């Protein structure tokens, strides 16, 4: 039988980040439920790396992640968006001259 404990004692949600080759960034693979970090890592291997394509796995409790709020995107990202002079195409060179 499904006991009440089963129902309400949910395992914690973890986000899984996998690095597929050395030198590459860890990228988000998905999430899973596990009671602690050790079991989260083992589950992450079984769920997300069944073909062995990984050199490293990170697991992070979902509740420990802070994220920007989509509704605030306009104001939050306004400042960097308005700085065209941080891109190379902002600067002009005499015709015919190459910068590399």
């Amino acid at each position, binding site marked *: 039988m499904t006991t009440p404990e*089963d129902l309400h004692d949910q395992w914690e949600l973890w986000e899984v980040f996998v690095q597929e080759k050395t030198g590459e960034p860890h990228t988000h693979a998905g999430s899973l439920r596990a009671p602690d970090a050790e079991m989260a890592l083992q589950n992450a291997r079984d769920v997300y790396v069944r073909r062995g394509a990984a050199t490293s796995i990170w697991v992070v409790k979902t509740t420990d992640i802070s994220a920007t709020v989509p509704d605030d995107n306009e104001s939050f990202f306004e400042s960097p968006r308005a700085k065209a002079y941080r891109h190379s195409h902002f600067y002009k060179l005499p015709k015919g001259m190459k910068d590399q």
Partner: protein
Amino acid sequence: MQQFQTDLSEHFNDRIQSNDKIEPNDWMPDRYRAQLIRLISQHAHSEIVGMLPEGNWITRAPSLRRKMGLLAKVQDEAGHGLYLYCAAETLGISREEMFDQLLEGHAKYSSIFNYPTLSWADIGMIGWLVDGAAILNQTTMAKCSYGPYSRSLLRICREEDFHKKQGMEIVATLVAGTPRQKHMAQESFNRWWWPTLMMFGPPDSDSPNSGELMQWKIKLKTNDDLRQRFIDMTVEQARAFGLTIPDPSLRYNDRTGHWETGAIDWEEFKLVVNGYGPCNRERMDARRKAHDEGAWVRAAARSYERKHATDGSAAA
């Protein structure tokens, strides 16, 4: 307030129109959320229940090669169910709620898994036909508007490549075998052909959710479109295998360039979806048994965690 809602809804529709992906924290209409929960949880249940008909043959696989392939495929299905439960959870439903819906018999899953696997040839047919149909559906759905579902499907499609191929290898082996083996393949094909065509869902004329789903780009092709693509592809493969399609009305339409089948028995489909297929009860009994018998594993994992939390030894 009402104006605010209208603005949100217009902005949302604009994003859908420009093929933007919707992410969990973005505003979305309640119906969009509800439809996705229904669809993704049904898909997750299908992966989990889908392990049962094939699991039936793991111990009786005819060689070690076949056993390894089948085992890996069934393990993938467990994994795919988990990706999809995670994707559904991002919409605010809990995993326990979804499990309960399944175990209490309220949730739907693909009708195809309520048919029995009577011979080894059925394992070949499931890979070739059932996975073939699922892959066609999933590669289309992978372009859907909801980010987490789209990403889960991309991962699933990448892994399912071999599922269909191992099935086709089994069929190819049987049709090249003894007369009894050939007969086994044909008998199995006869049983799976029509139920596989039903996997794409009711005809467009009787598919109440389709319009809304397509407007939101949750669904990108209609049931009949996908079914036709499957028929055209599979008729050719069946002919190459030397199998006879169990449909005397099947004919090639020169004008449209498509194969046309006889009428699909939608009454049978409705019965199976509503719980009266050959194996519905057996499948649910097996799921409940597996869930109950796994209770000690869940309890052990929980007490291991508590032990490490109290004695101070970091678990990871």
